[in-house]
Each structure stands twice: as C-alpha cells, then as structure tokens.
C-alpha cells in the first residue's frame, strides 16, 4: 500500500517558500528601481561632465551593490524550491512553467550579472559611454528578469495557452504568446515593477531627507531627491493605474480572491467598494451576517472596477461557495453560463476528471481504445475543475479573509500616501523650502519601512488571496508538494530563517554605515 502524504508537508513547504519569497522581495524592489535611478544619474554625469554627479552615482551604486548580492542569493533558492518542495507541481506544469525560468536565465540574468560587473569594476577600464551603457543594461536585465518571473507567476494565477495531456499526465504548452501576454501576467508585471520603482524612489527620498535633517551631503541630497521624487511620482501613478487594471483581471479570473480582498460574503448588483472597514471576527460561513463590524463604502465602485459596469453583480464568498447565481466574470465553464456551480459541484466534477484520467491510463495500458476515448472525453469536459478533486472540504477554497482584506486596504492606503509624499516633496523643492520642512523630512525617512511593508502586503494579497491554489482551479498546494517528511522541511525552514535573518541584519548594518558615511564616497557640497 502506498503511504499517505504527511499532511504537514504542504503547510511547511508553503511556510518555507513564503519566507524565502518575502526575504527575496525585501531586496529585489530596490534593485529594480535603484538601477534606473543610478542610470539616470550617470546619464546626467556623462552629459554634463560634472564630477559631483559621478560621486553621487557611485554612492547610490554602492548601496545598489550591497542589496544586489543578497537579492541574487535569495533568488536562486526560489528557483530550486520549485523542485525541492513542489516536485509534483514541477512535473504537472513544468512544460510551461520551466520555459520562463530558462528564458530569464538566458535572456535577462546573464545580461544583468555580466554588466553589473562592468558597472562596478569598469570605471577606470572602459570608456564613459560603454560604462553608461553597462549601467542601463544592468537595469534592463534586472527588469527583464522580473518580467519572466512575473509571467510565470501570472500563469499560475490564470493558466492559459496550454492543454492537459493524459498520456504524459501533465499540462503542455500550446501557445507561448498566450502565456506571455496573458492579461494577468502583463498587469502583474507592470504593477510589480512599478511598485519596485516606488520602493527605490522612497528609499532615495528618505535617505536624502535624512541628510537634509543632519545638514550633511546637501548637494547629494538635493540632486538625488529631485530625481527620485520625479521618478517616484510617475511610478506611483503607474502603480495606481496598473492596480486598477489588476483589480479588473482579479475580478474576471479569480473572483474568490476579489471577494476575500473585499471581505465580501454576500454579493449583489452594484456593489460598493469598502474604503475602511472592520472585519467581524465572529463571522461564520452561512450565518447571514455581512462580515463587517463597521464599514465605509463608495457605492457601486467595486462593480465598476471589477466589471466596468456599475450595476454588475459581484459574487461574495458565500455566493461562490453555494453557486446558483448568474456569473458575469470570465473564468467560467460553458455549463455555468446561467448558474454558477457550487464548490461541492466543482469538487464532484474534479473527482470525475481525476477518475477519468485513471480510466484513460488503465484503458491505454490494456489497449482498450474505445474506453480510453470515452475517458478522455470526460477528462476534457471536466478538466477545468481538476484541482477541486483533491479538496477535502468546500470551505478549503476560502483564503484567509481578514489577512487579505486588511493587507489590501493597508497597501492601497500606503500607495496613496506615497503619491502625496512625492507631490509634497516636489512642491517644497520647487519653492525651495524643503530643507526647513523638518516634519515632512522625518515623514520621508519613516516612509522607508512603510514602502517595504506595502510591497510585502501586495504579495500577501496576491498569494494568500489565491489559496488553496498553486495553479488556479487546477492544482491545490496539497497536491503540488514533494514526497518528503515534514521534519526535513521544518529543519530547512529554521535554517533558512536563521540564515536570512543574519544576512538581512548584515545588509541593514552595512547599508546604514554606508549611508552615514556617504560623504566619503561622494556627493559633498
């Protein structure tokens, strides 16, 4: 008899992957944005020939380098963990998912790491223009790298361009352009990289503000804050725009995630968007309550954002669980055109798909082509519910609602704060009063941790919000794992946490020291 999977494997694998991803995402956003900020600064240096710009460029480049190293270190773990912790996933969708990772390596990562070496070591070895090109190529490489990873992630949220092959027991790519240009992938890429630019801009604004407060390195501060605030304002507006389009794709492709983001249990036509709300911790599925202790909402806005129609019906968690409503979102089967299935019905169909796969393979093994044909017909019909067949309860399709709801609100609220901050900084820079606005300068400094918080919350919304799916509707996390014992993962989880914490602490102490001594490296007035 085949032993059962250890139930802790999925939870600990998730914990390990989450901790790796969260640490990784502490370093990557800064790399994505700072690469371009540094490139802009160096462009000005090359154009003007002003050596102060070179000093300023090199100062921020040093901080970039410290951050880059640890981003690289944590990035490789994520790639390997798809195999070590999610081996079943790696086979089930490896035919599609592996391609973006390989393309990232060939097309982007080599570009980034080759020219990052030239950028750091080439100052006195190559011409100015080649050096400048290397700096830009480093930034382009880093952002291309993000593109491919986010295409891969977007595909997990909305699998497109593939077909399940029962002979190989995996999904196989049918159209790479559908994978790359899936609306989820594009919105995710734009929203995520722009949030990285905002992170870098806030970092530069915050550090520069600290110099103003301490009356040190004023030229470096003045020049850096101007570039960062303009770069940040443009980027944060793009984040808002792409956030809006991301909300639309979530509504269309992942309605349960949207319901969790909105703490929406019972939907109705013309749903409002909750601006501020308190989740009711005593809320139980089916108790008839709306899930809020208090809420302040803008009428019809959720329907407008999610469906581009103020009267659209936005299904809530209980609607999606019980089914029966007329769905207006895209991610439905033909059979659900008039009435969405309940989760129970989906589980039933998922189990039929899994049984059909079994039947198909047994029929093929026994050379019974008629039976194989019939089994494949059932499998094709119900494959879009395949992952539901692994679920053991209807409520397992509901993510952690308060975590997703509050994370989303806090992220959006912080996003608006960043826009206001950039506008204020630019206004007072323009009116030459910024150096005296100590309150604003301190706010800028303290916004640095907030931008990291917002960035992490974005991933919490994206990843916790799509639970229990590793691939939307097709594979839950419990069926995606490797066959290893929980103890092994617990040990590596602890080892990773210790290692990451140590490296993060080292990263912060080194950065703080470099910032305090910024003048030694350049940017003196």
């Amino acid at each position, binding site marked *: 008899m085949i032993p059962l999977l250890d139930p802790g494997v999925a939870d600990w694998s998730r914990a390990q992957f989450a901790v790796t991803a969260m640490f990784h995402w502490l370093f990557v956003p800064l790399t994505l944005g700072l690469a371009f900020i540094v490139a802009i600064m160096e462009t000005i240096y090359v154009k003007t020939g002003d050596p102060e710009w070179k000093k300023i460029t090199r100062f921020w480049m040093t901080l970039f380098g410290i951050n880059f190293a640890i981003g690289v270190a944590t990035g490789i773990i994520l790639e390997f963990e798809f195999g070590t912790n999610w081996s079943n996933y790696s086979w089930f969708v490896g035919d599609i998912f592996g391609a973006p990772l390989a393309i990232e390596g060939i097309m982007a990562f080599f570009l980034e790491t080759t020219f990052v070496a030239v950028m750091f070591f080439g100052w006195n070895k190559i011409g100015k223009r080649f050096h400048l090109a290397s700096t830009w190529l480093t930034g382009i490489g880093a952002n291309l790298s993000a593109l491919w990873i986010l295409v891969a992630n977007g595909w997990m949220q909305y699998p497109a361009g593939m077909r399940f092959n029962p002979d190989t027991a995996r999904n196989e790519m049918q159209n790479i352009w559908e994978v790359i240009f899936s609306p989820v992938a594009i919105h995710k890429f734009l929203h995520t990289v722009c949030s990285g630019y905002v992170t870098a801009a806030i970092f530069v604004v915050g550090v520069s503000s600290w110099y103003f407060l301490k009356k040190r390195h004023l030229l470096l501060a003045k020049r850096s804050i101007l570039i960062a605030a303009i770069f940040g304002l443009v980027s944060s507006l793009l984040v808002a725009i792409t956030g809006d389009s991301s909300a639309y794709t979530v509504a269309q492709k992942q309605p349960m995630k949207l319901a969790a983001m909105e703490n929406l249990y019972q939907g109705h036509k013309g749903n409002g968007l909750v601006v501020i709300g308190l989740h009711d911790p005593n809320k139980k599925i089916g108790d008839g309550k709306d899930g809020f202790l208090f809420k302040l909402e803008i009428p019809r806005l959720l329907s407008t954002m999610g469906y581009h129609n103020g009267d659209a019906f936005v299904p809530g968690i209980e609607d999606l669980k019980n089914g029966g409503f007329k769905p207006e979102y895209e991610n439905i089967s033909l059979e659900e055109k008039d009435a969405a299935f309940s989760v129970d019905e989906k589980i039933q169909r998922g189990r039929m798909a*899994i049984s059909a796969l079994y039947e198909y393979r047994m029929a093929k093994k026994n050379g019974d082509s008629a039976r194989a044909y019939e089994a494949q017909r059932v499998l094709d019909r119900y494959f879009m519910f395949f992952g539901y067949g692994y679920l053991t309860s209807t409520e397992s399709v509901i993510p952690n609602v308060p975590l997703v709801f509050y994370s989303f609100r806090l992220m959006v609220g912080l996003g608006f704060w960043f826009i206001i901050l950039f506008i204020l900084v630019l206004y007072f820079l323009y009116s030459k009063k910024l150096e005296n606005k100590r309150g604003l300068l301190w706010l800028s400094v303290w916004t640095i941790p907030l931008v990291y918080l917002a960035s992490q919350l974005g991933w919490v919304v994206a990843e916790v919000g799509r639970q229990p799916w590793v691939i939307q509707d097709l594979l839950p996390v419990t069926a995606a794992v490797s066959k290893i014992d929980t103890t092994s993962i617990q040990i590596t989880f602890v080892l990773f946490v210790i290692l990451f914490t140590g490296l993060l602490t080292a990263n912060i102490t080194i950065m703080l020291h470099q910032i305090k001594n910024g003048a030694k490296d350049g940017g003196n007035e």
Partner: protein
Amino acid sequence: MFETLSMNALQDYWWIIISLLGSLLVFLMFVQGGQTLIFTIGKTDMEQKMIINTLGRKWEFTFTTLVTFGGAFFASFPLFYSTSFGGAYWVWIAILFCFIIQAVSYEYRSKPQNLLGKRTYEIFLIINGALGTILVGAAVSTFFTGSQFTIDKLNLTNTLNPVISQWQGAAHGLEAMLNWRNAALGLSVFFLARLLGALYFMNSIADENIFNRSHKQLLYNAIPFLVFFLAYMITLILSKGFAVDPSSGIVSMEDYKYLHNFLNMPVVLILFLLGVVSVLLGIGLPFLNKSRYGSKGIWFAGPGTILTVFSLFLMAGFNNTAFYPSTSDLQSSLTIRNSSSSHYTLTAMSYVSLLVPVVLAYIWYAWRSINKKKIDSIEMENKEEHVY
C-alpha cells in the same frame, strides 16, 4: 525552422545545450576552486585581497550559469527536475546553502559593520569552494551510478498521495555521498576546480609570490585530481550501464555500457580525449617553462575542462542511455526521450537558445574589458576602484 525538427532531434538538441551549460558550469567553478586557495596562496592581507578580488569579478558568471543550468533543465527535462530536486532534497539544499553564502560574501567581506566579521565571510567562501564542488560533482556522478526513486504517473489519480516521483532513500540524496564512485567524481571536480583556480591566478594577478605559490599548487592538486579522475573513469568504462531499448523504452543493465557509448560515438570519444589532453597540457606546460606558459595554462585547461565534461554529459544521455537511472526501479529511469518537455515547448525554447551565442559574445567582450589589465596591489589601494 525548429518546428520541422522531429521530437528526437529536439530532445537531442536540448541535451546538447544542457551538456554545454553543465560543462561551462564546471569550468567556471575555477572561482570555487580558487576560493579554497585564498589562505594557501595568499599569505598577506594584500595577497588575499588580490585573490579575492580577481575571483570576485567572476563569481556572478558561475552563479548565473548555475541558475541557467537549473532553469534550462527545468524547461527541457522537467521530469528530471521534479524527480531529482524533490527527491535528493538534502543534497540540493546543501548545494543551495553553499551558493547563498557565497553570493553575499564578496560584497560584504570588507564592508564595515558587516555583522559577522571579515574572516567569517572568507570561511563562507571556502565552504562554498569545497562543499559546492564536491556536491555538484557527486550529484553529476549519479547520472552514471543511479539513484533511489520510483516514478508512477498514475499516482496523480490518488488524491491522498498524488506525487508522481517518489524517493526511496530515507536520507533524501545524502546516501549518494556514501557511494565511493560518487565521492571520487566529487573530489575530482574539487581538485580540478583548484587547479583551474591556481591557473587563473597565474593568468590574472600581477604578483610574483602569488604566481609562484599557484605554480606549486598545480602539482599538489594535479596528483589527487588524476588519481580520483582516473579511478572514476576506469571504473566507469568497466562498469555496467543503464541501457534503453529505443523501440520499447525498456531499461536494462548492459556490461561496459559507457565503454560502448564511447566506441559507438567516436566524436564524443575524440572530444573527451581532446579535453583530457588539453587539461593535462594546461597543467603540464607551466612545468616545462614557468615564465612562458605559466599564465597561459588556463587557456588549455579551461577549454579542456569544457570538452571533457561536455563529452561526459553526452555519454550519459546519448546512445540509448538512461541519463538519470533508478536503482530502485529500473523502469522508472529517466531518459532524454521520456523526461523531456513537449515538442512545442522544446521548439519555442530552441528559438530562445539562438540567443546563447549573443550572450557568450557579450560575456566575452565584457570579460576582456575587465581583464585586459592584470590585478595588482596598486589597483587594490586605489580609492577610486570598487574593491571587495
């Protein structure tokens, strides 16, 4: 262009790409080998600084090649990725740890307030250099010696235990380290990396002491390298191998399988011999004339390493051979036919592979730009330079 190729041709093409990446990775492990020589060859702070900086300008290439090797393997042979990474868990986690600590060590080592102190980061580099090479070498050896796993795609229909690839060894890959042949290839890679590291120092650092000590290290490392490598190769060509019947896909044990592979694929044999001779020339020429050939050894040993490893990978996968054999269930063994991606994906990826020459060209250009002048103590003391 690639659409018209047969499935077998695409699979062969991708095995060649994987082999190329694997061989480049082993060559670039001169960085790892060099790291284990920091204190052996560098006796003063300045000497150690020059060694670390000459390696520090190249560590990203090794790292990126490892990442690309992993990504390309995932994309082209996902069943290997799924089986090996998910099964030999502890080996891959250990390799990961080795590379994580390397990535930060160069940048953090000489920075003030680096929390752990300069010496700790140097020890990290040594751990990466020693353990990283041995583990990668031993992992590659399992391509010839086999691993303990089973594969059953029907498992996907068992909702309580749907994992297709299941490892049978409780040690999750660490058991491979107890096989002396795996250990021998691991140690071969370790000593080869040290040889390449020493040759690279002779090529890229303008310091007489480092040059002379590196020269001395060639001998000390050449002897164990040759012992382990020859022992491995002799047992390999005399051992039974995992043969595949091309029509039925049935795997069976075949006497002298890898010797047969060499004989049936003379091009591979020639590449292998050329590679070995080139490595030996790279090591030997500096002994003939130290001042004339000392800095040129890497130009022989480097390409020689690439050719040797490339041919070993080809031998592992071609000529109807299971490249990732299972000793638990012979029929679960992975071949380039039963573990690859689909025709569509291999085709799409093949177009991407056309970028490889472009990548190699700009790496070459960037490498030359940085290496056109040897590292010396003056450069290390120049405040204008970015120094680790």
